[in-house]
């Protein structure tokens, strides 16, 4: 289908309408435009999906973006199976979140309401560019574009300086990642002269890279991915990014943008297959992030913060999948995660909405009876993320863990540990929010209500998806060839060498069983422990204090990086620039002033002095005149 460009064009048009006419449009009009363009995009994506299924994959070139002699980068879209999956996630989940937002943001003034939707549409546009681009440069455009929109939406309530700081932090940390990405692009360009996937990912082109090149490029690309997908060491922006409106957290910081790193690595899987060292690093960083972030989530009380760390941790699983070569599994987890994490965030949003902005779960409790739909959907999402069969998270996480076991059992054990943490903190936060007695203020209790239809309907749809999406990826041990997603994606990943080791069915059954039993046990424990949660004034100590303070990573970064940079800047500004360089410049000026003040003394005003000078000069002139031949010879000798 040649209408692929319409998919990103619709959100762009929505952005322009909402952005330019934000003063004129009413809230209704804004939400119709904002959601309408997304739905249109979604329908087109569906059409595109079936087209690709029927064999319509390919590259569509539109115009020359940069064309300088030996350097040519077209503006082109690549439409294939991988793109299609991401397109459906982005536009599908995006549409639901847009609809949800139209109710959630109802209290904003029309102008800011329109600004919100404009940013959201711009985000979807950038995200679509990212996944549709046929070369790394277009991907980079989208890559930076989503970073920008994330910045704008985190700082959406711009009067609050803390939020602004969070927005800036997100952007700058992303930029650090982008630095790696950019350098990788230059590296690729200097070796091959092209950034287009279909030219680059051919055996001839790949042969141009030495082993060191491939390792460096893949590592640099991975640096980019750690920035965007919030992996160690660049993850700290994501929890702070919760300053934005909750639907934004659902769309950008859970379902779509943060998975861009996974998309990028999956897209360049051929490069990665040549770099075993990088793959090891990715797997290690992935599993480390998964466990580390989950451990922080154990002791957070802010419902959105828990979800944020949970997202970081789940992204770690996806990277673990990529690192051990389970590209299909990683993409599968992206999809299921998009469903259940968006659902969790939207559910949290619904709770926050009902609580009048309260996000601290210590002051919630017993919401079950006030908000039945939110409660049920949230519970389903918790089951899905914890990996209880047959919910979606079970299948995708299991696929990754099985692949990890095949690669190295240590990775598997750590992965299971992270999964147990996940089950614990999810049910802790669930119990604190929905079970027990209400612990909020009288006024809040009075206002408690179920959210409007525009919010509960997206919740319900996502809940259905979170429950059943797992059946798209039924492992071969249940039924051979039933992994629909893998079958669909196989043209993209078919060029990979087949996995060297496969697990026996017996091992796989056992792993699955052990994980499931442990997870269910953890869930019951957490449920029991927090069902009747009571606030206690007792100070946290020891490890739990460290966890509550997020391992003090922010403080360490401030001390090790931010403050030294600021001090260095001050030093350059005040010492080097003002004192040293300007000192030299002004010193020259002062020297001239000083010497002229000295020479001025000769001009004493004494007539006698002047006459003496005159006579002496005359004598000197005469001497020179009589000896000019010698003097000229001397000058020539000097300048020879």
């Amino acid at each position, binding site marked *: 289908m040649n209408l692929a460009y319409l998919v990103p064009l619709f959100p762009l048009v929505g952005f322009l309408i909402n952005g330019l006419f934000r003063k004129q449009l009413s809230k209704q009009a804004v939400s119709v435009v904002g959601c309408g363009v997304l739905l249109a995009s979604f329908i087109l994506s569906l059409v595109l999906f079936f087209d690709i299924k029927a064999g319509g994959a390919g590259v569509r070139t539109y*115009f*020359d*973006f*940069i*064309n*300088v*002699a*030996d*350097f040519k980068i077209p503006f082109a879209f690549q439409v294939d199976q991988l793109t299609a999956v991401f397109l459906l996630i982005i536009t599908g989940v995006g549409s639901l979140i847009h609809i949800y937002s139209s109710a959630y943001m109802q209290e904003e003034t029309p*102008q800011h309401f329109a600004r919100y939707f404009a940013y959201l549409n711009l985000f979807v546009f950038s995200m679509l560019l990212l996944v549709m681009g046929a070369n790394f*440069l277009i991907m*980079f*455009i989208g890559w*930076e*574009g989503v970073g*920008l929109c994330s*910045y704008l939406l985190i*700082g959406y309530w*711009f*009067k*609050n*300086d803390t939020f*602004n700081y969070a*927005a*800036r932090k997100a*952007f*700058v940390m992303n*930029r*650090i990642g*982008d*630095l790696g990405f*950019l*350098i990788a692009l*230059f*590296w690729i*360009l*200097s070796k091959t002269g092209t950034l287009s996937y279909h030219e680059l990912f051919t055996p001839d082109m790949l042969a141009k890279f030495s082993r060191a090149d491939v390792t460096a490029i893949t590592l640099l690309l991975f640096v980019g991915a750690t920035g965007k997908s919030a992996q160690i060491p660049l993850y700290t922006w994501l929890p702070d990014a919760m300053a934005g409106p909750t639907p934004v957290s659902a769309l950008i910081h859970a379902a779509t943008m943060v998975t861009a790193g996974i998309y990028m690595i999956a897209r360049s899987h051929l490069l990665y297959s040549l770099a075993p060292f990088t793959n090891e690093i990715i797997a290690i960083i992935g599993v480390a992030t998964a466990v580390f972030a989950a451990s922080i989530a154990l002791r957070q009380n802010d419902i959105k913060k828990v979800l944020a760390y949970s997202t970081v941790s789940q992204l770690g699983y996806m990277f673990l999948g990529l690192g051990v070569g389970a590209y299909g599994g990683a993409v599968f987890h992206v999809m299921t995660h998009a469903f259940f994490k968006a659902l969790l965030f939207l559910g949290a949003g619904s709770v926050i909405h009902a609580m009048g902005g309260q996000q601290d779960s210590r002051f919630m409790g017993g919401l079950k009876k006030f908000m039945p739909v939110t409660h049920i959907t949230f519970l389903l999402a918790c089951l899905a993320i914890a990996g209880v069969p047959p919910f979606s998270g079970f299948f995708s996480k299991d696929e990754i863990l099985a692949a990890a076991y095949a690669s190295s059992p240590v990775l598997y054990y750590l992965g299971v540990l992270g999964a147990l943490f996940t089950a614990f903190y999810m049910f802790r936060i669930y119990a604190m929010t929905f079970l027990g007695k209400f612990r909020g203020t009288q006024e809040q209790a009075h206002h408690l209500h179920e959210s409007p239809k525009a919010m509960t309907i997206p919740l319900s749809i996502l809940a259905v998806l979170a429950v059943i999406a797992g059946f798209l990826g039924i492992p071969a041990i249940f039924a051979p060839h039933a992994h629909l997603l893998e079958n669909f994606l196989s043209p993209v990943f078919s060029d990979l060498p087949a996995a060297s080791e496969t697990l026996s069915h017996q091992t796989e059954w056992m792993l699955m069983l052990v994980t499931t039993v442990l997870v269910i046990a953890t869930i019951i424990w957490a449920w029991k422990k927090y069902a009747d949660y009571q606030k206690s004034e007792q100070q946290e100590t020891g490890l739990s204090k460290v966890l509550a303070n997020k391992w003090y990573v922010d403080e360490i970064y401030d001390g090790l990086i931010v403050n030294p*940079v*600021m001090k*260095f*800047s*001050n030093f*350059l*500004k005040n010492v*080097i*620039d003002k004192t040293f*360089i*300007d000192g030299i*410049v002004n010193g020259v*000026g002062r020297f001239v002033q000083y010497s002229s003040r000295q020479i001025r003394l000769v001009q004493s005003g004494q007539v006698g002095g002047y006459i003496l000078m005159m006579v002496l000069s005359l004598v000197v002139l005469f001497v020179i005149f009589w000896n000019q031949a010698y003097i000229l010879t001397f000058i020539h000798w000097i300048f020879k």
Partner: protein
Amino acid sequence: MIVLLILIPVIAGVFSFFIKNSKAAQGLALTASLLTFLTALVLVTTHGKVQLEMQWLPQMNSSFNLSMDGMAKMLCLLNAVSVPLILSSTLRSHYKSPGNFLGLLLLTQAGMMGVFLAADVLLFYFFWELALIPIYFLCSQYGGNKKIQATFKFFVYTFLGSLLLLIGIIYLYLKTPDHSFALSSFYDLKLSASEQNLGFWLFFIAFAIKMPIFPLHTWQPDTYEQAPAAGTMILSAVMVKMGLYAMIRYVLPIFPQAVLHFNHIIVVFSVIGLLYASFIAIRQDDLKRLIAYSSIAHVGLMCAAIFSMERVGLQGVMIQMFNHGINVLGLWIVASAIERQTGTRKLSEMGGLATKAPVLATLFMIMALANVSLPLTNSFIGEFLMFNGIFRFSIWAGVFACFSIILVAIYTLWAMQKMFYGKTSDFTANAMESPRNTQYALIVITIVILVLGVYPQPLLQLTQDTVQTVLSIK
């Protein structure tokens, strides 16, 4: 036709000195600059080189020789676009004798046009000085509190440069076999290695001061801070490009061996300057100085890309010269609008302007993003190509240069948030939306930023021939 580019501003400028009435002077200046713009537009769209040769000083073998290749076309267009924008955005400013002010501005424009067009070295020098002298008067007559010191610093720096340039020109002139100032005979010079080195440094320092390159940059923040708004705009939007232009037009082709001999050290210095200025910008509290250091950083990057001698990098410099001019002009327009509204330039005293002036906030955001060189703004393509060129030249220089993309994000976003976001302060509490004329100028700039960001091909094609010629001499 080509001579009109110089003639219109000169005549209008001279006339303007005799007009006392502010409105009439503004009308004259605006009409003249628009006429210049139209002429430039016609010339830029003509295919191929435009040339003109007239007798000037036959005794010295110097002729009034103008020629317009791709790079000259682009920079003339930049010059011709900038002046109407500057004039329209500063319509509401009051000066003590507007006729003189606008006259000086137009004479500066004429001088810069001449610099970009001259195909004769003496003529080039003549216009180089012609562009500088009016700007001295602009700064010393209409500047801020410390205008005299700042102008004096500027004057001494640039005249030192001009002096070296003059010595270099005369030196090379005496070396030409036919004793001619024609650019072509300078290109044909056969110089020994030591002669090349001497001439190279004479020319290079002169242009490096103008650009400016670290560590010759300290005149710039002071001058930008103290000069009147319109003066600052023309200085940083167009005049800085004179140095870059001359680097490409004169230094690279005339001293190819010396360039290859010294370019490593120059690239290193440029990259240091880029990072150095970016670091300083992080801690600037004065908005004007912040923009000045940001501009120094960008120019450092361009200089590094020029001396990387890579085709891609040079192509990036070409379009970045235009784009940087447009973007920095936008930043200055916003800065002066804010200073007029709030009466302060200190970022620490600002805040919350987005609620007071939402249109200005939106427009500034786009300028700021262009300054960060986000994709789909015009400067992204230029910086991408330049980084690429530097990277091809040396991996480490490329990597260090790329670090600036983090620093630029830090200080630009910080400044934007300090100015427009957060809570209002005592200074900004009574601020109002910027006037219409400022907004129109900014909208034009925004459109240019976005159009060139999505479709940079016209500019790239326009300047391809120059890049080809310059590098083929090597």
